[in-house]
């Protein structure tokens, strides 16, 4: 298969059911909203070692937030529903509440909720104050900087983790150029985040290892520097491979992000675009590139 002359491998991305939530962080200035947001989603690339996957969904202007201040929308995902509360409590408590002038609100309408603010309120040491507006409860927690405002409950829903595309370029520069273009296009899609640094994974992994103490190791089939030493999926021309992992609140949003990402990545110097899977036996959702690009392919 080809798109704009670039080879698209007839394969699929294998994704998993995750549990996701959307958090809106606001602050007195755009600068502090962003600082808090970046801290909150830091070290949240892969569930394997970080316990949670997270990313910035989009910036919000002051007329788009509940308290009329500049904000940032964040998405968080975990494999288990239960661990979402534990991880969120830690992240919001340690990175958002500690950032100057911030407040934190639920951004996801859902019947299923976790009481994040309802847990963090105890930091107020008995001086916390509850306010209830339209069945939404907020907690005012006295802090050294003034007052931290957080919503009691955050909506959660089933989402999709591990949607992905893999871009094989002729060299590191062309692969990065294509991946950056893909990420820029994917960031315009609501309901998805790309949790890795800059949205791009430079060291994708496989779920096996030669070492018994290690669950995951470098994805040898896609490592260009060892393609003659081991079984490889790469052709001779490939000099660098980058992956973009997508976590989404829905199958539709994930598929849309993959589609715009592949289309944006189809630039000069890209040898092939493919996707990662484990044979289809492990994941809950398979995203076939042929289906995603239906109607857009050259052949």
């Amino acid at each position, binding site marked *: 298969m080809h798109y704009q002359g670039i080879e698209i491998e007839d394969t699929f991305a294998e994704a998993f059911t995750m549990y996701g939530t959307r958090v809106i962080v606001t602050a007195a200035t755009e600068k502090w909203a962003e600082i808090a947001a970046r801290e909150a989603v830091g070290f949240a690339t892969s569930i394997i070692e970080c316990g949670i996957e997270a990313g910035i969904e989009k910036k919000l202007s002051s007329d788009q937030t*509940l308290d009329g201040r500049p904000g940032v929308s964040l998405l968080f995902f975990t494999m288990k529903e239960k661990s979402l509360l534990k991880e969120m409590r830690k992240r919001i408590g340690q990175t958002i509440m500690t950032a100057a002038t911030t407040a934190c609100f639920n951004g996801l309408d859902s019947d299923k909720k976790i009481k994040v603010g309802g847990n963090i309120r105890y930091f107020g040491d008995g001086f916390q*104050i*509850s*306010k209830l*507006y339209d069945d939404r409860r907020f907690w*005012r927690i006295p802090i050294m900087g003034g007052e931290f*405002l957080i919503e009691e409950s955050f909506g959660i829903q089933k989402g999709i983790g591990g949607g992905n595309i893999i871009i094989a370029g002729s060299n590191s520069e062309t692969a990065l150029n294509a991946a950056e273009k893909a990420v820029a296009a994917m960031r315009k899609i609501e309901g998805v985040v790309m949790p890795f640094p800059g949205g791009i994974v430079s060291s994708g992994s496989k779920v096996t290892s030669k070492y018994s103490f290690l669950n995951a190791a470098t994805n040898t089939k896609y490592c260009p520097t060892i393609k003659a030493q081991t079984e490889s999926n790469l052709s001779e021309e490939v000099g660098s491979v980058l992956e973009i992992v997508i976590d989404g609140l829905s199958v539709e949003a994930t598929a849309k992000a993959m589609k715009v990402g592949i289309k944006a990545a189809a630039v000069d110097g890209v040898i092939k675009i493919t996707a990662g899977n484990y044979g289809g036996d492990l994941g809950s959702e398979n995203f076939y590139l042929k289906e995603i690009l239906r109607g857009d392919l050259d052949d």
Partner: protein
Amino acid sequence: MIKLKLKLKKENPALIKKGNKVIGKIPVEVENIRPDLIKDMSFSELEQLEIRAGKEVYKLKKFFEIEGKPAEEIEIEGDLSNFKYLGAKMNSGNIRVNGDVGMHLGSEMSGGQIEVEGSAGDWLGAEMTGGIITVSGDAGNYIGAAFRGDKLGMNRGFIYIGGNAGNFTANKMRRGEIVINGNCGDLLGAQMIAGSVYVFGKCGKRVGAGMKRGTIVVFNDLELLPTFSYNISYFPNFLNIAFRHLKNDYGIKIPDQALNSEYKRYTGDNTELGKGEILIWKKD
């Protein structure tokens, strides 16, 4: 939408007359005029609805000209200032009154909405647990309060008074919101337990006396009890949400300057738990 219209008859059993002159009115209890009770009645059942005036019991049709059908929307016209318990204990539907209403309007209601184009008497929304009451004019004492001997006043719901309010507004209030556009009498928020009260006019004496928790926001300076302590002047971010909620959900006009300007935060009553707060807007 199907509506039930009730127009108070000029001649009705509650009038006390001397010759042709009306010299007084007997209190009338209309706790049966509730949308949730009426909506499923037949027209003849509605006509027979009992109303107590003094020691006598009358039928609805004796007091009102009835138009439309039994419905969740009730529109009432006339001076009902001697009518008590209108909408009391209602849990859904709407009552709209063109004229004044007496005591206990919407007391103990749990849902629905009451709108009054006029003024209302004492105990408005007392011990209500939900719903909305808006009054364009003034209202009496004990708005959203607890009845004598009871522990909790208003516990959820929303009350708006376009004019002035009497004494003991929000007495023992537990949850919900009360907005007074005009002035408020003495002992606003006395023994308040939680909830929010906003007064855009001036307040009387002893605001927050004995309050445990809760928030009273006032837009004019007031004489505070010595059992309240000054903490800080700042803009509490929660007011951004509170004001937007009042504006968007209830159409309350909030002065632009009230957003992002400072409020003096006093806490008390220190003779009680001391966790109540009075926020006083610093106008300049």
